[in-house]
């Protein structure tokens, strides 16, 4: 519906929400927020055409800082709710956003299955490798040995690799970003939104308050851009291999993309008639009669 309106072109600031972020000064999430606002503006979206769905966490406060529609749901449930939004109205641009704990911890099952279904959602994870909002416990993305309030003697568990698991779960667009590299992140997010299918952007978004290991410096010293490495995003093996690098070099950019997998919404025959949210509810006389007849 919205494509026919002729509103003036919008700027990133038009995507600013009603309230200002309450993140700690220096929090990585600011970088991602900026990139999202810019990306939406540059892609010519209108605020009412976009729904940003989040879970709970510092990062999950993001929808409140956008002028789009939003849902700030339960911890871990962003992707499930976002799936419902997309199913009800596939004309909307649906973004899911949240933290590493939210997405890879408690929300891990929705992450795997939403990827498998290839629902056309752009999933932005502000990965600070810590539970920020609950004041600093270990996350499934924390490194081995990391000392947090719940692991004062060091973490014993190997961290999740969001990129490789997303690829193996069937995500059709998988990328990494860094909130310290705004321009690159912007371009990555734009590609992710434009991708028709489930896209993950795992964004290193330093928690300046609770994670003193994975700082801006940590990433600045290591990050290399896949685009500059001649990486071929159709090569899942190379993508996985590159995603496993960590200690010396860490790659950002588009790891993997497959444009040929149909999305669930594209395949669902009921949606051929348009978004179900727009279809008039209830049964026609013909439908009713057909149903009743089967019972007799």
């Amino acid at each position, binding site marked *: 519906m919205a494509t026919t309106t002729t509103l003036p072109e919008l700027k990133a600031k038009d995507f600013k929400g009603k309230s200002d972020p309450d993140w700690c000064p220096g929090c990585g999430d600011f970088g991602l927020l900026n990139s999202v606002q810019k990306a939406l503006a540059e892609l010519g979206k209108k605020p009412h055409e976009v729904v940003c769905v989040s879970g709970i966490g510092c990062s999950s406060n993001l929808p409140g800082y956008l002028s789009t529609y*939003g849902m700030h749901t339960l911890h871990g449930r962003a992707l499930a709710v976002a799936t419902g*939004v997309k199913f009800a109205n596939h004309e909307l641009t649906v973004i899911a956003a949240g933290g590493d704990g939210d997405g890879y911890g408690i929300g891990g099952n929705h992450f795997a299955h939403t990827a498998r279904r290839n629902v056309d959602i752009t999933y932005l994870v502000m990965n600070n490798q810590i539970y920020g909002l609950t004041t600093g416990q270990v996350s499934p993305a924390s490194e081995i040995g990391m000392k947090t309030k719940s692991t004062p003697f060091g973490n014993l568990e190997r961290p999740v690799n969001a990129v490789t698991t997303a690829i193996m779960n069937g995500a059709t667009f998988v990328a990494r970003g860094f909130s310290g590299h705004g321009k690159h992140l912007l371009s990555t997010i734009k590609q992710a939104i434009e991708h028709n299918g489930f896209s993950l952007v795992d964004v290193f978004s330093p928690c300046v308050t609770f994670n003193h290991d994975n700082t801006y410096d940590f990433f600045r010293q290591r990050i290399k851009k896949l685009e500059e490495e001649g990486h071929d995003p159709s090569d899942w093996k190379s993508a996985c291999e590159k995603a496993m690098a960590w200690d010396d070099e860490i790659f950002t950019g588009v790891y993997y993309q497959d444009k040929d997998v149909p999305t669930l919404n594209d395949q669902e025959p009921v949606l051929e008639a348009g978004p179900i949210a727009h279809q008039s509810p209830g049964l026609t006389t013909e439908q009713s009669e057909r149903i*009743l007849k089967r019972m007799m």
Partner: protein
Amino acid sequence: MSNGYDFAFAIGGAAGQGIATPGNILARIFVRRGLHLYAYNAFQSIIRGGHIFLTIRVNTELVDTHGDHLHLILALNQDTMTRHAKHVVPGGAIIYNSDSITPAEDRQEAVQLCGLPIKELTSDSRNKLVQNTVSLGVMLNLMGVDFSVLEEALTLQFKHKGQEVVDENVNMARRGYDYAQANFTAFPAALPEQEKPLAVWTGNDAIAMGGAAAGVKFYVAYPMSPATGILHWMAKNARECGIMVRQIEDEIGVANVAIGAAQTGARTMCATSGGGFALMTEAIGAASMMEIPVVFVDVQRAGPSTGVPTKTEQGDLWQALGASQGDFERIIVAPKDALDAFDTVVELFNLVDHYQCPAILLSDLLISEGTFSVDPDAINMQPTIDRGEMITEGGPSNGYQRYKITESGISPRAIPGVAGHAYVAPTDEHDEDGILISDEFTNPHKRREMVEKRARKLSTFFDKVQAPALEGPEDAEVTLVGFGSTEGVIREARKSLEEKGVKVNQLAVKWILPFHAEAVSGILNKSKKTVIVENNYSGQFHRFLRSETGRSVDGHIRKYDGEPFQPHHIVDGVMDHLGDKKGVTDGVFIPFQEILV
């Protein structure tokens, strides 16, 4: 139930012996003749083997229970014969394969033994299941039905498998029919025929159809017995109705996907049983906080935990009441039978849209997997759909506030996609704009205002739904109180009690939350003796009733062995409560379950 025709028969055997097909054929025959029926299938949670006992009761009037008597049994294995021969009333009959099954000694008097030489009768067929068709012929002969009726039914049932299969079945049925004609005595009363043909459905069909009629555009589920039938109906019929159906990875996903779709404007329903419902509870609280209308169905089965998946219970009432943390607005309702379930779903969608809150519909295995006859004209497939205060057209926002504090507590709801009205729906406490008061700032006065705004919404609820009313003689000696699925069996028990000279009336409660405390208290205060009938151990409804009204009652009849009440269980309980109370402990009478499946 009526003084007219009342006939109940059962088909018993193991899973995999093909009990469903003859059951379906017979049900079709009955409803096409305008007869009412109720079928209860007692079975185990296994795919092959075990024991299944399908009881079908036919009546000239509406019946909601399989009743107290069995007139005929078709025993497909020895186990059925041994367990159930004794349940056939005098004048009844038992049909069985005399090649492999020995009649049980333990029988009531004057029960006709209809042994069939199946090997001989089916010697030319290689399909083991044709013996069921032979038996069908026998049954219909005994019930005094013309063979042509069966022929027509078999043709309908099997025509998609080709003429050969039809012919074989008709042929086999004929043999049984003729064999019975020659060897057995038909029942004195022949199966009547009434003018208006009826239809047949299960409670799960009714719930699904209620959703379709109410304008559900999205049905989402994870399979769980006894709610899976709703998914099956939807999966089969949805596409042609423009309804999207999805199965999700788990019930948490289901509930949250539902919330997303409902927020985006699609009427949305999901269903599960107790264990899956436990997983949905967090989301129910979230839907209420974000003020999103969704209907959650919990089809109760015998608990706790995995419990007895194929058995019934009214054991999730407190789970529904306690679903999710904190105080929040929601509607809870327990319909009484299939048709009521259909109507309730329709009504519920208008209510949740009006009040912008979730609802919980409590069904149980008895309703959901029970097979009911229904007058198709009683099913309103095109009811009024009222979506409440919804903004679906873009335009200037005029300072739109999603959670505006209004006198009614209801704030017009803009659907995502509508220009000029964007907002965030949050699960945190928020202000009128949806901005968190928990993170941005904390203001106890605003918090209080928002709690009260939401709570105000339901203050008009009693104007919208029907209050429970007393049924039966005002001067009754006993008032039987129940909720949900016990309504029919209580009604039937009342008739039996009346025959015994005991005047009984009944109060059937359907709307659980908000609760009609005044209406119910008013009725109970006038009652002479009150007895609550419920299908659980701890008296969940009793305790809830007391929490809302402060009213205690005089007695209880409870059952928690997995099987539903039969009318005589209630009759026994009432007589005992009125008599020497020797079966009553701490005010509770627990009936003995005779039929063991």
